[in-house]
């Protein structure tokens, strides 16, 4: 009886959160899945059940297939880069060195800039007559096209997104490194382990847990990248930065085909879950 009473109280406390979860997340998700099976003609009007029609349309669409390819390539590149750089920065900024706190603040600062503002800043940096080419010129290097070239657009976006993201993910890793017991580190020092050895054989295994979190959360957030694409490249040149999230947006609100867009959302969620499930498998295998 007492137990049941406790359960009810817990439920009452959880109710607002559960309600929000249902209204803001689960209902829209179900509606997206349902709507993805329908289609609507603008000239004839009326919503018609289309079965898997929207999905087959998408899969046979060249632009969609390219978008999946670009998204996968982006995912494969951006996540390892961001995780490795965040980890190296975290190791660096947990050393006792002059000004470590100041440097740390500088690295974290971009988090406080909204993604849209960061994108605008970088649009000026990447302009043909912008800051980046100014620096290259000073160094005696040729000017680069950056966002206007099919080959450089994705790397340019990766640099921009890492500028925003690396500081944020570093925070989790710094917290992890600071939890490594001092005795362990001192023992390694006494044994005469080199700095490299200490990082790879002592710190790395001991921060595996926050590292796993960072990898998975970073992957998900990078699969949802939208603002910089919308502001800087509109998916171009030639669709080479047309990430899925932006493609969904174009289909839904620019092209105005909400049903196919919802089918694409379902595919994006499935892709995200598959990638993350894969990451879990790999991480589990390490134990």
């Amino acid at each position: 009886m007492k137990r049941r009473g406790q359960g009810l109280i817990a439920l009452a406390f959880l109710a607002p959160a559960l309600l929000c979860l249902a209204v803001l997340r689960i209902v829209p998700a179900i509606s997206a899945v349902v709507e993805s099976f329908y289609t609507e003609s603008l000239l004839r009007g009326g919503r018609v059940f289309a079965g898997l029609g929207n999905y087959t349309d998408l899969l046979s669409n060249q632009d969609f297939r390219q978008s999946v390819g670009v998204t996968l390539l982006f995912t494969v590149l951006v996540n390892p880069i961001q995780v490795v750089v965040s980890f190296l920065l975290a190791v660096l900024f947990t050393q006792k060195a002059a000004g470590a706190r100041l440097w740390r603040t500088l690295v974290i600062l971009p988090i406080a800039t909204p993604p849209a503002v960061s994108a605008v800043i970088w649009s000026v940096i990447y302009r043909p007559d912008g800051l980046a080419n100014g620096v290259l010129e000073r160094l005696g290097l040729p000017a680069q096209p950056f966002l206007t070239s099919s080959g450089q657009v994705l790397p340019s976006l990766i640099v921009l997104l890492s500028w925003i993201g690396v500081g944020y993910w570093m925070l989790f890793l710094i917290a992890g490194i600071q939890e490594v017991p001092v005795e362990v580190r001192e023992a390694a020092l006494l044994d005469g382990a080199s700095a490299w050895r200490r990082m790879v054989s002592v710190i790395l295994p001991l921060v595996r847990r926050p590292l796993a979190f960072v990898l998975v959360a970073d992957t998900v957030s990078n699969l949802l990248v939208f603002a910089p694409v919308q502001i800087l490249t509109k998916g171009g040149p030639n669709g080479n930065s047309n990430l899925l999230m932006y493609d969904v947006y174009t289909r839904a609100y620019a092209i105005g085909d909400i049903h196919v867009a919802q089918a694409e959302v379902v595919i994006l969620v499935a892709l995200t879950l598959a990638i993350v499930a894969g990451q879990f498998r790999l991480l589990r295998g390490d134990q």
Partner: protein
Amino acid sequence: MQRKLFVVPAAVLAAALLVAGCGSSGSSGSAGAPAAADSGPASGTITFTGTDNAETYQPVIKAFEAKNPGIKVAYTQIPFDQFNATMQQRLSAKDSGIDVYTVDEPRVSQLAAKGFLTDLSDLDDQVKTKVSAAAYKTNHFRDKLWSLPMWNSTQFLFYNKTALAKAKVPPPTADPQQRWTWEQVEAAGRKAMQSGGAKYGLFMEQPEAYYQLQPLAESLGGGSGIEGDDALTPAVETDGWKKAMQWYGATFASGLSPRGIGGFQTGPVFSNGQVAFFVGGPWDLKIFGSSKIDWGVAPLPYFQGGKPVTPTGSWSLGINPASKQQGMARKFLEFATLDATGNLATTSTTTIIPANLEAQKQYTPKMDAFSGAKTAGAAAITAYESEHTAVSRPVSVGYIQFEEVMGKAFADIRNGTNPDTRLQEATRQLTDAWKSIK
């Protein structure tokens, strides 16, 4: 370790649901929303949404509020780049937070078909006498009137007098009979780059917008890009389109025009004196007035052997069928468009041509003096173009998709993609996008 990792799957699930949530919203309504029977309260605040900055509409709102005590108008600006998508999103969600909104004329058909506009056909007779025939026509869809024309537009060739003088190039005249060709502009632009101190020869204000690029293809007889009885057949691979795009792509490849500068960054390139020739609209007549360089205006060029064609059309005003204040919204709409004083007030801050013919008559002569001697000739150019060379953007239910697909094609051509193959791809993309409309 495994146990403590439980936070992660929860985070992933939440993120996954977030993605799903983003894509869902109400499905759009069926064709042709009926006029709301209930006109709502007679006093209160109506909301008005558009792309221009708030100052633009201050005079008309002030005049309207003075004339209609008890009604207030709150204006919300959504930047041009995001306007269409945001409106699509809010209108399809039947958001009653928008009463009146600006409608880009070629989009009238699709917005009406989707049920995003209130039928205004009872004003038909009034509109017919008060605006030009072209404006009257573009605001119709399926024989009904859906929006009221507020503004009209045209394009000018702005030139940097200092750079041309330095390069010893005689500047173009404002006389439409002695209109320059693009070939002349290109040659003069190159000279200004070599010895006039200009960084670029030529630049368009909206380098990836159909509105500005349609005249290039039309000048060569390439057509609008849309054909067929239902206006849902792509025709962007005509000789005119191919030639126009080859020329356009080459202006960037050769450095005559800059890549990678877009949106709000284009105007300053001219007002800073970095470019010799700039293609812009009537709004620039005043904006460039604060520039330190000396400049002038000339008619929009055409291709040698082709014919002069200029863009036209601008924003109309429409009413959201989901608005619960139809009566007040309509009062404001009529004041800002059909009332000459009200319509004129919409053009007093941002210099754009009023669509109301009576307002236009009072307005056009003043254009010559918008920026002192620099804008001399602008009035005569405007009058000439609207009578002889103006070509509207095509009326099609598929215009929204068309503009989107073509915008991306122009961006790619600008960045160096082969124009012929890119236009071919655009045809395929249009066919795909229009499949869902038919």
